[in-house]
């Protein structure tokens, strides 16, 4: 079953005004349930516009969007989507508003009408998942640093326990340790097969390390899609639209430019090390 089915979606910002701009042009994409998908693309390529269709913030102007099998053209479907699809915005600090961190994280579970006990469980679980300390619960979310605010906002969405989790640039502004912790959290969530994770990201390392499947957008169009390895194999195409490839792929490409016959379709630093060692041994052999 598909978590997301998008067919020939078009979306124009500020339609009918002098600022009209086509943000999505005939985008079709399918994301299977339980998958982790990364959506990458330069700034202004339509990534955020696309994912805002996934939880009913935007209604499709042309084309179809089906979420968990239900058509988002129907307003009643769209307004109910928040229960199944949790969206963490690009600037999650803009979604914080309560007086304390506890209340902020508890907001969505409260709206689901859960018991006090269950709400509390979910708050603590979300806190734990995002690596936040307990003593933060009584603080005002507005007094926190940028990186901590981001984690609180993510905790608030995790507390909803959504079937589809959409994260718009989740690790931007996180320090390396929080980032690692957070990526591990996502990995743990992935192992529960019932959750679909969709992340919009500029971090090719995050995409390479986490996603099974990658969609590349450029100027409102889907230009590449496939398994993570297939997509990063097309390094030149990715670089030509202003994106990067993971550091291990870049290193391999530069070695190849210098005449060293390494494979460039590696994912992760360890695969790169293995490949370099292998090539070194081949080159050492007489006649190799």
């Amino acid at each position: 079953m598909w978590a997301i089915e998008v067919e020939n979606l078009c979306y124009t910002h500020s339609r009918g005004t002098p600022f009209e701009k086509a943000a999505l042009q005939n985008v079709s994409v399918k994301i299977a349930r339980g998958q982790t998908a990364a959506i990458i693309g330069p700034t202004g390529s339509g990534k955020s516009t696309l994912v805002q269709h996934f939880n009913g913030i935007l209604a499709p102007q042309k084309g179809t969007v089906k979420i968990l099998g239900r058509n988002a053209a129907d307003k009643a479907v769209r307004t109910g989507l928040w229960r199944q699809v949790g969206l963490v915005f690009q600037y999650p600090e803009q979604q914080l508003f309560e007086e304390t961190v506890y209340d902020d994280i508890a907001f969505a579970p409260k709206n689901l009408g859960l018991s006090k006990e269950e709400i509390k469980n979910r708050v603590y679980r979300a806190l734990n998942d995002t690596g936040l300390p307990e003593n933060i619960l009584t603080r005002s979310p507005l007094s926190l640093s940028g990186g901590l605010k981001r984690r609180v906002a993510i905790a608030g969405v995790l507390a909803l326990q959504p079937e589809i989790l959409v994260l718009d640039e989740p690790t931007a502004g996180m320090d390396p340790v929080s980032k690692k912790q957070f990526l591990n959290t996502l990995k743990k969530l992935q192992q529960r097969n019932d959750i679909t994770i969709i992340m919009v990201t500029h971090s090719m390392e995050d995409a390479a390390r986490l996603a099974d499947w990658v969609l590349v957008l450029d100027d409102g169009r889907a230009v590449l899609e496939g398994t993570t390895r297939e997509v990063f194999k097309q390094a030149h195409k990715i670089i030509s639209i202003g994106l990067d490839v993971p550091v291990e792929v870049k290193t391999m490409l530069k070695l190849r430019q210098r005449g060293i016959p390494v494979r460039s379709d590696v994912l992760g630093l360890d695969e790169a090390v293995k490949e370099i060692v292998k090539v070194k041994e081949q080159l050492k052999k007489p006649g190799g």
Partner: protein
Amino acid sequence: MPPSAAGNNEPLIILENVDYSYPVGDGGFVRALSGCSLKIKRGEFVTIAGSNGSGKSTLAKHLNALLLPEKGKVLVDGLDTSCEDNVWEIRRRVGMVFQNPDNQLVAAVSEEDVAFGPENLGLPPGEIRKRVRYYLDLLKLTEVKDRPPHLLSGGQKQRLAVAGVLAMEPLCIVLDEPTAMLDPAGRRELLQAVTKLNRELKVTVILITHLMEEAVFSQRMVLLHKGKIVMDGTLREIFARRERVEGYGLVLPEAAQLAEKLKAVGFHFQQLPLSIDELVDGLCGQLK
């Protein structure tokens, strides 16, 4: 640029034993900076690094009198930030770019946003126009100059905020995690623009980040941990003490991580590579 108040050989910024605490909900305080002392020379390019909540942004806000030290002193070009009469002169000298550009965009049209600062400096219209054109071009925003800032992408907004600050031609620019929302090409462009300002126009640059890939552009790194300055030196000096850096919640640049893994399987590097080019240079000799 404003005339220099202190002699040119004096450091541009001096922090002496600065303490600062934030109030928290229940009447208590959280110490954000303690005993910070730091001198920044004219024309330097310094990275201030540290994990989320380490006090980086708090320190940055002391550099143009947005926050005043609770104890200790901050001097900018010889001017004491705690003296109210100095605030205007200090803010002419130190421009600030925040984490979230939405907080500092003020005008209805992008071009006017860049003109806002120079207008307030009382510059003649011809000079304002010249600066607006120059900085829009430098940040690659000429194409969107007639559009309202809220319709720009995250990356474009961030570049617009930078253009607005640069148009005031301050002696020093403080960038607080300016690239969190930029794509790789945008990130590179912004850092190259900042590096150019530093090298050619001798603008002092203070870059707040926890991305070590970005720190590579600077000559010096100051590391904050729990509100204290714990390391201060060249990048190579700091990265040579990997375990200590990791203890403070930061990690080496990806290229250096890959180099470390290669060292573990028998490769040698004269000095730790900090960029992919340095890594590839070091590897080629060992592979051919």
